[in-house]
């Protein structure tokens, strides 16, 4: 298990050091600094073995977090824990920075004592932790409060405490998708997938039982066979605002759920039921690869005119309902290292050559669906005798669209709270779809 956990600043000075096991000595702190942080060559693996001691590290801005062990630990668990540790710290004091860490070092030690015991991760849900580890010092708790804390930390529903009350029961669902594309210069899709997340923000009283439904192909097909069910009624509840077309259902390649979702129930019935943590949580992650709506198409044309000149023409076409607007569009056209000058003409937006980034950056604030825009550039090159050809990195794109490129739609989210006196209808629900570019690249 994890033998020790260290946090360093960018210089390699140790900010936090907590040792859990006897086999990790103080020299491990230095070993990591010397061999990884100060290494002459950039380290080529997130796992480093130095003198039979293994170091796992992640970096957040310029802060290094390192977990150390001498045993054959579960490596995936160690990284998951380090990420979790970052989440917990962020939840407590915001950005992970040197200053914030120093300002909260007592708190961090307290957290580390609680969420890792003898190197074994314990309950690390901020919701639960915040009930008894606070920045302002611990208030004396009544006996009831104490046992409530302990039952929550160890209980089946470790992520939610009892007795939450809101005057207005409200929930927000965000369907956030990032669409990834790799396209050949000829316009052939080499690979495309959407990785999506359903983020839920809930302000619900009591211990609400929730049930979430979407246009999952497997569920829809099952219903088609089995006839209309009670869920069909919920359809009108939360209509999605799809962008591309009237796709009825989507094929989900794979999905993972927040630990509040009952996985065995999903496995058996493919229904998503849970008691949500209070506040924000990432309910679900999913991936689709079929029938993706690619919001933009990039058509590149690169022509080498002699040895000292390149002509680049790039056309982008938006491919969604004309009534919808895409935002924050940015096209990044790489230029060779020996570029001496660039002239750009674009019909829409602003384009600039950024020498420090070796790219022409073309920005468009808004663009409606089914439109087209073009940029052309002349790139002057310095003659070189470098034999190596320019690698022609792909043209990449960023954008944001108000629909889910996967075609996913939320069909319903039903809330039941048997003990308290409010029904599903009393809950105010909001759904929003945002499609963003992930790695959206077209080779040229």
């Amino acid at each position, binding site marked *: 298990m994890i033998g020790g956990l260290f946090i360093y600043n960018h210089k390699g000075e140790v900010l936090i050091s907590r040792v859990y096991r006897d086999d990790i000595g103080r020299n491990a702190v230095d070993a990591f600094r010397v061999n990884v942080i100060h290494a002459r060559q950039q380290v080529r693996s997130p796992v480093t073995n130095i003198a039979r001691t293994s170091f796992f590290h992640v970096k957040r801005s310029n802060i290094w977090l390192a977990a150390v062990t001498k045993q054959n630990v579960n*490596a995936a668990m160690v990284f998951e824990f380090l990420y979790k540790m970052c989440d917990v710290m962020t939840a407590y004091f915001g950005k992970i920075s040197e200053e914030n860490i120093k300002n909260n070092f007592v708190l961090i030690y307290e957290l580390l004592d609680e969420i890792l015991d003898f190197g074994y991760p314990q309950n690390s849900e901020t919701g639960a932790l915040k009930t008894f580890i606070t920045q302002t010092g611990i208030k004396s708790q009544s006996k009831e409060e104490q046992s409530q804390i302990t039952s929550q930390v160890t209980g089946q529903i470790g992520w939610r405490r009892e007795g939450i009350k809101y005057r207005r029961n409200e929930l927000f669902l965000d369907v956030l998708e990032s669409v990834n594309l790799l396209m050949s210069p000829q316009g052939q899709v080499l690979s495309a997938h959407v990785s999506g997340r359903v983020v839920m923000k809930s302000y619900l009283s009591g211990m609400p039982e929730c049930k979430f439904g979407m246009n999952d192909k497997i569920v829809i097909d099952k219903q088609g066979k089995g006839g209309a069910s009670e869920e069909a009624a919920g359809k009108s509840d939360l209509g999605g605002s799809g962008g591309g077309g009237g796709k009825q259902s989507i094929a989900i390649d794979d999905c993972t759920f927040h630990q509040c979702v009952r996985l065995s129930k999903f496995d058996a019935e493919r229904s998503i039921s849970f008691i949500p943590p209070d506040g924000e949580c990432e309910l679900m992650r999913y991936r689709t690869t079929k029938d993706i709506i690619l919001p933009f198409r990039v058509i590149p044309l690169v022509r080498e005119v002699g040895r000292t000149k390149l002509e680049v023409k790039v056309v982008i076409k938006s491919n969604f309902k004309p009534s919808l607007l895409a935002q924050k569009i940015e096209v990044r056209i790489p230029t060779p290292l020996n570029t001496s000058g660039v002239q750009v003409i674009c019909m829409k937006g602003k384009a600039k050559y950024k020498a420090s980034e070796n790219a022409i950056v073309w920005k468009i604030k808004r663009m409606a669906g089914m439109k087209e825009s073009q940029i052309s550039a002349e790139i002057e090159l310095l003659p070189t005798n470098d034999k190596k050809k320019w690698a022609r990195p792909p043209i990449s794109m960023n954008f944001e669209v108000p629909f889910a490129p996967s075609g996913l739609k939320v069909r319903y989210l039903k809330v039941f709270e048997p003990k308290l006196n409010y029904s599903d209808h009393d809950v105010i629900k909001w759904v929003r779809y945002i499609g963003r570019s992930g790695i959206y690249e077209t080779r040229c």
Partner: protein
Amino acid sequence: MEWANQLCENRQFGSKMTDSKYFTTTKKGEIFELKAELNSDKKEKKKEAVKKVIASMTVGKDVSALFPDVVNCMQTDNLELKKLVYLYLMNYAKSQPDMAIMAVNTFVKDCEDANPLIRALAVRTMGCIRVDKITEYLCEPLRKCLKDEDPYVRKTAAVCVAKLHDINAQLVEDQGFLDTLKDLISDSNPMVVANAVAALSEIAESHPNSNLLDLNPQSINKLLTALNECTEWGQIFILDCLANYTPRDDRESQSICERVTPRLSHANSAVVLSAVKVLMKFMEMLPKDLDYYSTLLKKLAPPLVTLLSAEPELQYVALRNINLIVQKRPEILKHEMKVFFVKYNDPIYVKLEKLDIMIRLASQANIAQVLAELKEYATEVDVDFVRKAVRAIGRCAIKVEQSAERCVSTLLDLIQTKVNYVVQEAIVVIKDIFRKYPNKYESVIATLCENLDSLDEPEARAAMIWIVGEYAERIDNADELLESFLEGFHDESTQVQLQLLTAIVKLFLKKPTETQELVQQVLSLATQDSDNPDLRDRGYIYWRLLSTDPVAAKEVVLAEKPLISEETDLIEPTLLEELICHIGTLASVYHKPPSAFVEGSRGVMHKRLPARTGSGESTESPDVGAAGGSAPEAAPSIIPSQGDLLGDLLNLDMAPPTTSGPPPPSTGMQMGGMDLLGGGLDSLLGGDIGGSPAMGAGFGAAPAVMPASLNAPVGGGLGDLFDLGGVGMPMGAYIPPKIVWLPAMKAKGLEISGTFARRAGVIQMELILTNKAMSVMTDFAIQFNRNSFGLAPAGPLQVLTPLGPNQTIEVSLPLSTVGPVMKMDPLNNLQVAVKNNIDVFYFSCQYPISMLFVEDGKMERQVFLATWKDIPNDNESQFQIKDCHLNSDAASSKLQGSNIFTIAKRTVEGQDMLYMSIKLSNGIWVLAELRVQAGNPNYTISLKCRAPEVSQCVFQCYEAVLKN
């Protein structure tokens, strides 16, 4: 500490009250100040002081002096302060064991506190204090806490048992904590169960044979129930524990799998990977014709792909594991090639791993896509990545025959880029392609040859040399090409040297007429001038083969090589099985068994996949055949990076054979009979060459004397073996003691020991033959290999009567110095072959060079002076003879007995200078100046000779003679 000082300013500017200010106290005398603050009456001040202490501790400052003061703060109802004090205690208790006892009372009291959080805190901290005396006091509170009414305390106590076990295993057993811990597996609270499982698993690792976890269907059922309810971390502990269980039969195996599969949808990648581990292991037991088996296979792919959208560090862990899974069950991900395509801004460690998996998944169906990708990658910036991509193209060619042509042309395109490392990498893989598809793509050789000069890496040079040697008959200037490499032979790496040696021998066998000089040159470079035993051995083997039986040599060296197999770099199957059992752990990241990186016994148990139960089915991996035609029939054999000896002989060292190649025909060595080392080469060379003068030196009849120009330094090494030996002279002269040259074990019962002597001007080899076998030995014969001074038996070996079991015979064999000459390393090395009715045996021995000092070695004074001046000073070597207690006259007369003649003596400032001369049997003169200082046991000797390489041997003789 610098930053601590900076923050000092923050405080001055009245910044917010934050903890960072505690880092500011770095001045001298601070310990004193802290002490005062710790003992303050005000609670707030106390707490501030403890915080400062912890801050100092963090940056590595020694604040152990404050131990008693900090412990005094322990008695408080302020939980925050208490936690800080405990933190301090955990750090320093070990260095202050006596004072730590002071804390025990508080701990014991806290363990009974009304607040469960405080009870748990106390028991958790106590377990972290590794002081024997405290441990004793821990037992009672721990026992209570294990049965506490509050689950939070119980789950903490469960881990505490593991802590205590780490400190004192015996105590834990004696106190019966293990049983209590086992009971906790049935606890009503899932987190208590999970922690108990974790603790038990850890303890069980240090007791490999104990049945501590006692996994049985009932307890497994409990675990599976808890699995649905506990935290993500608890699920990992339980799944990792489940993976150690072996179900009784395939039905149980299936029902566990069914209950584990929902975990594949967990957001936590570690839960997913641990579930994959359980499934991969238990699948082994399922009959592959079962519907459920194929369902399970289908269920595994999506979660594995999803892992690739995790953060890069986790992607890396996932990819290392997928690499194993793909080797074990290629069918799972065979349709998922695209997800392993490299993204432009993947971290390099992710890119490299993806590339590996792409090659493993490459098949006829997807090869076009893969190749297009690989070609893109080959133009990237990162050198390691580009190299791997180029290599991958070659591996695709070998793996998918239909794509070979496209791959080769892609590689040629890449060579045209002239990017140095791309070219080198391409040449290395093209060599492998030639091995897989001989006589198909040789048209590209011309292009390869154009890039000869740019190759600066050993592997690429070796590959190119291999290609030239292998296809020597088609490359017009093969001899020139190889000769160009030969110039810097000694600067090359061993890999290149070995390859060059083999290539030139191949060339010689293919084009004997034009390349004798070249082959001679390389053989002598390899055998005489090299210190590398592998190179020398191979050189000798070739030399002997060539000189004994060129036809056999041809058969051996130019033997048809087995084709290399499709898969390369596969992990050895038993290791792979073990690593599959360790999915998700460090072992699967390193691709090494835990024993390779974990100290001590913990976790070093070798894990195995379970065997399939049921009707007599074999235990081989069930995927064979299930994957349709694509699965290989037999487990593909692995190409190790370094070849075995047989492979070496067959010059396959860069890509040794898949099936162990045909052993080199041994007949070549034996068929000669009496003509063991004879000049069979003639049959190959034809009459016209046999007589050519160039051949004379090497292979033909030997000249009587050694060529005057021995032009390489003598490698010392083995020469020292004979240091103690003396010079064989009559008249009581020292003869080295007999030593065993050929042990009976190596010669089917024949043991040979012996020595050399010079008696009355005749060199004699004195042998003792002992028959340690059960049968009678007859028909003895002896022969020498060519050697530096042309030693050869002057007559047959006189063993007239058969040698019965346990009989010994002494034989004296007169030697002549007119045999064939070949420079040996060391110079005085002699390779001998002895034959009897059973077999031929080889051994080598070293003779004292003084044996060759002739009786007329006394030079005229004038001649001596002139010669001394004449020999360039570069040829002079100086040695020290230590601890010799003879005076100059005694030394002189002693040396004279061994034909070392003193010509003149001079005394300068109390130092005797003796001038001496020696003549060797082949006419080489050695001149010496011996300086002896009265009272100093260390002599200095300077030797001058036109063939300076003998100096070392001569010096050894001086030493041997003077000291005996």
